[in-house]
């Protein structure tokens, strides 16, 4: 089982260095082309009309006036998107989320779309579409939605316990042992309820695409996405196209964080293009991004944990309620699965509730669902430590999961890295630094699964010896640099000789999305094997050129060398020399590899944070922050640090500021960066990082995914720091100045 491990712990020449990224010049000069940066001859502008209500029946849509407006080339409603989903409810939900079907389920739900010759005309046309709504009662709060008598959002959803129509779309009970016995063993029990608010991935680039779809059923889609292959299959299924007739090209992507793993306007752009028979460009406004694209769940979580005086946690119970938006998902289930994953506790029972509300369909956001669960659990762990007078770090070390512990999602762990991150945290100078008045320190741990998945790459060697690596995982944060390093390492050539490109869906086999921290892990694995395949071809050609049997050729330092009797005086042939002769020795030289990169290896991190709270205003500043995480092997440490720092910064925003606010009518009140405030440069300190390298035995270089785990601990680390600074337990995030002042008043 597992993959080739003989290269784990190998000496690397290039892997671990920090060369300039191959797309750097494009990105600092403005040449890089993102979703909205491309145009086609005759293109139209596509715009979407959205529901102004949180929940309404759509009685009638009159598009006749809009269609008659000069310059309007197509108007579409759900009638132009027939149900091709063949009973696949998940797919139908995606279709209905892209375009309402007889009912609007949240503020911002798409109701109709137009394509016109320019933006002004398209805007006028939107105003001419007349929609008759019948307002329905709505619910946006996760706890309210579970109450008897709450407005029901989906008729097909039944409570698995009562079998009655309900907003509870999934109930997940996990765990092991006997919590009642565990609580009976405890010297102290802590019970606490927590709330977290809806946040958004907040990528700076709005969703954008350019779609062409002809009457022959052949189309092209240029789009900002984390997964061109997934977008291709989803769009093809929704529109009834052959998968291979739709070519999807991923643009440079201006941030995704999970939010660009789902389709939103893309099927609409294709449908408009099909109707108008012209290319259609659609770019979401920021307002639309906030109102209608992927938020996280808001949550309501109750935790009960028991501890002995010696620090042994004896039992843990959590009820985790996650809102899913208007369509069923599995976000509460994910919260339950990750909840106690950092600990070795004999008796646990996490219960996840997935709850429908009149808000946009929840989408993945960096280690989806884990940060909220970690906030509740890690806050409670701190409370346990205070209760028994133990340092929180020592309580965590005492109860940390290790090889042989049972995870909260069921299985028993193999070798894992939480222990080393905690030891590193305990020994970090940050832990011993002095705090001043109104300052507090907190720490927290975090867990994420990491994925591998389907991957394939092509590696083509040019006649000048330069190498073109084509991968199918979108580069969201510098992975082209890492993959070039891996190819160069394996071939024994210079980093600069390799150029990595992202292939479109017509030039490579299927690749899963860049999600689950899998880009460098899985494409890196495929690249290693593709390079080894190319080396076999290089050796074969060298054997012809040197007239030496293939068995006598070895590959060393980028050269083919003949070994054995009679060959010791032969000069080795470099990759360049073999490549130059390729046309006469058998044609192009290439390596190719398809893999299913399973066993990505679970990931753990420990964060330490210092804050200063102004007791007058309730405003909080993060004054020092340290991230410690296991990377398996850091291929390009700059971009590993970048993932650690970026995840921490997003978590800091989540903990202190970010919150989508819905009013009593269910309307989003802050659909813009002015009022949905993500951290700015002056809000943050430098974010220190410590990369641990505990090789993943299932990857030839020992790589683990690094992208997501860093967003898991910050909510709790900051919650614990603020609680320590103000002397009151903070249980509701974001910990905005108002909430902090209220907590101080209530105490």
């Amino acid at each position, binding site marked *: *089982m597992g993959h080739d491990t003989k290269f784990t712990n190998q000496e690397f020449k290039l892997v671990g260095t920090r060369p300039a990224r191959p797309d750097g010049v494009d990105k600092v000069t403005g040449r890089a082309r993102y979703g909205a940066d491309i145009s086609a001859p005759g293109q139209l502008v596509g715009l979407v009309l959205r529901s102004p209500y949180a929940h309404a029946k759509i009685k009638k849509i009159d598009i006749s006036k809009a269609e008659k407006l000069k310059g309007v080339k197509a108007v579409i409603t759900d009638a132009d998107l027939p149900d091709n989903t063949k009973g696949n409810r998940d797919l139908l939900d995606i279709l209905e989320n892209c375009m309402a079907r007889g009912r609007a389920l949240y503020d911002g739900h798409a109701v109709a779309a137009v394509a016109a010759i320019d933006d002004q005309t398209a805007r006028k046309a939107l105003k001419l579409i007349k929609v008759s709504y019948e307002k329905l009662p709505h619910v946006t709060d996760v706890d309210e939605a579970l109450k008897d008598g709450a407005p029901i959002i989906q008729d097909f959803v039944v409570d*698995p316990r009562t079998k009655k129509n309900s907003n509870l779309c999934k109930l997940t009970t996990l765990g092991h042992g006997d919590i009642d016995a565990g609580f009976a063993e405890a010297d102290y029990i802590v019970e606490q309820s927590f709330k977290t608010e809806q946040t958004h991935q907040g990528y700076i680039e709005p969703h954008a695409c350019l779609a062409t779809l002809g009457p022959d059923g052949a189309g092209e889609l240029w789009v900002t996405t984390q997964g061109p292959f997934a977008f291709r299959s989803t769009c093809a299924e929704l529109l009834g196209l052959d998968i291979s007739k739709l070519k999807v090209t991923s643009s440079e992507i201006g941030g995704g964080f999970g939010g660009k793993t789902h389709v939103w306007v893309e099927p609409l752009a294709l449908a408009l293009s099909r109707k108008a028979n012209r290319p259609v460009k659609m770019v979401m406004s920021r307002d639309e991004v906030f109102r209608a694209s992927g938020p996280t769940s808001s949550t309501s979580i109750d935790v009960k944990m028991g501890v002995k005086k010696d620090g042994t946690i004896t039992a843990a119970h959590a009820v985790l309620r996650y809102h899913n938006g208007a369509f069923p998902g599995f976000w509460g289930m994910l919260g339950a699965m990750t909840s106690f994953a950092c600990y070795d506790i004999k008796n646990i029972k996490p219960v996840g509730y997935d709850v429908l509300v009149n808000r946009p369909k929840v989408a993945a*956001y960096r*280690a*989806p669902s884990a940060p909220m669960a970690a906030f509740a659990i890690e806050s409670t762990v701190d409370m346990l430590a205070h209760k028994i007078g133990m340092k929180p770090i020592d309580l965590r070390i005492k109860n940390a999961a290790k090889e042989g512990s049972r995870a909260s999602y069921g*299985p*028993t762990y193999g070798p894992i890295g939480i222990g080393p991150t905690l030891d590193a945290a305990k020994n970090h100078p940050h832990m011993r630094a002095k705090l001043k008045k109104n300052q507090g320190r907190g720490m927290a741990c975090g867990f994420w699964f990491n994925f591998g*998945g389907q991957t394939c790459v092509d590696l083509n060697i040019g006649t000048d010896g330069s190498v073109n690596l084509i991968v199918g995982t979108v580069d969201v944060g510098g992975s082209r640099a890492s993959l070039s390093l891996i190819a160069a390492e394996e071939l024994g050539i210079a980093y600069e000789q390799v150029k990595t490109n992202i292939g479109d869906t017509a030039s490579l086999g299927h690749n899963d999305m860049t999600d689950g921290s899998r880009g460098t892990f899985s494409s890196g694995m495929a690249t290693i094997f593709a390079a080894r395949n190319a080396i076999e071809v290089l050796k074969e050609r060298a054997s012809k050129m040197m007239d030496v049997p293939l068995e006598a050729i070895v590959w060393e330092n980028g050269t083919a060398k003949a070994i054995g009797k009679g060959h010791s005086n032969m000069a080795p042939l470099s990759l360049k020399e073999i490549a130059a002769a390729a046309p006469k020795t058998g044609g192009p030289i290439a390596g190719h590899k398809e893999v299913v990169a399973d066993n*990505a290896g679970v990931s753990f991190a420990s964060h330490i944070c210092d804050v200063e709270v102004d007791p007058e205003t309730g405003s909080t500043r993060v004054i020092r922050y340290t991230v410690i995480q296991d990377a398996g092997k850091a291929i390009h440490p700059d971009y590993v640090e970048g993932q650690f720092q970026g995840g921490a910064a997003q978590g800091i925003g989540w903990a202190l500021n970010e919150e989508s606010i819905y009013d009593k009518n269910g309307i989003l009140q802050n659909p813009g960066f002015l009022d949905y405030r993500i951290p700015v440069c002056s809000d943050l300190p430098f974010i220190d990082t410590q990369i641990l390298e505990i090789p993943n035995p299932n990857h030839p270089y020992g790589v683990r995914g690094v992208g997501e785990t860093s967003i898991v601990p910050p909510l709790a680390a900051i919650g614990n720091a603020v609680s320590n600074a103000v002397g009151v337990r903070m249980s509701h995030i974001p910990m905005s100045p108002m909430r902090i002042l209220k907590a101080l008043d209530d105490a």
Partner: protein
Amino acid sequence: MLRVNIGGSLRTAVEGADAIDLEAETIDELLRSLSLRYPRFEPLLKSGIAVAINGEIYRDNWYVKIPLDAEVFILPRIQGG
């Protein structure tokens, strides 16, 4: 005989069982025999599941050999960001 543990909400598809004993050498065999025994399990295969063998999670490699006495968990297939 292999003991297959069923996680959380997947249990409803196997009449509430938290563990099932069956014969299987690969993940594919395991899933096929589960589907035969529990028809409600089959649709889950389409919407996606994952299998943990001795703590390592497999989402796609259905022809992996399952070692004797391995700890096997059926998990939902989940999504990352």
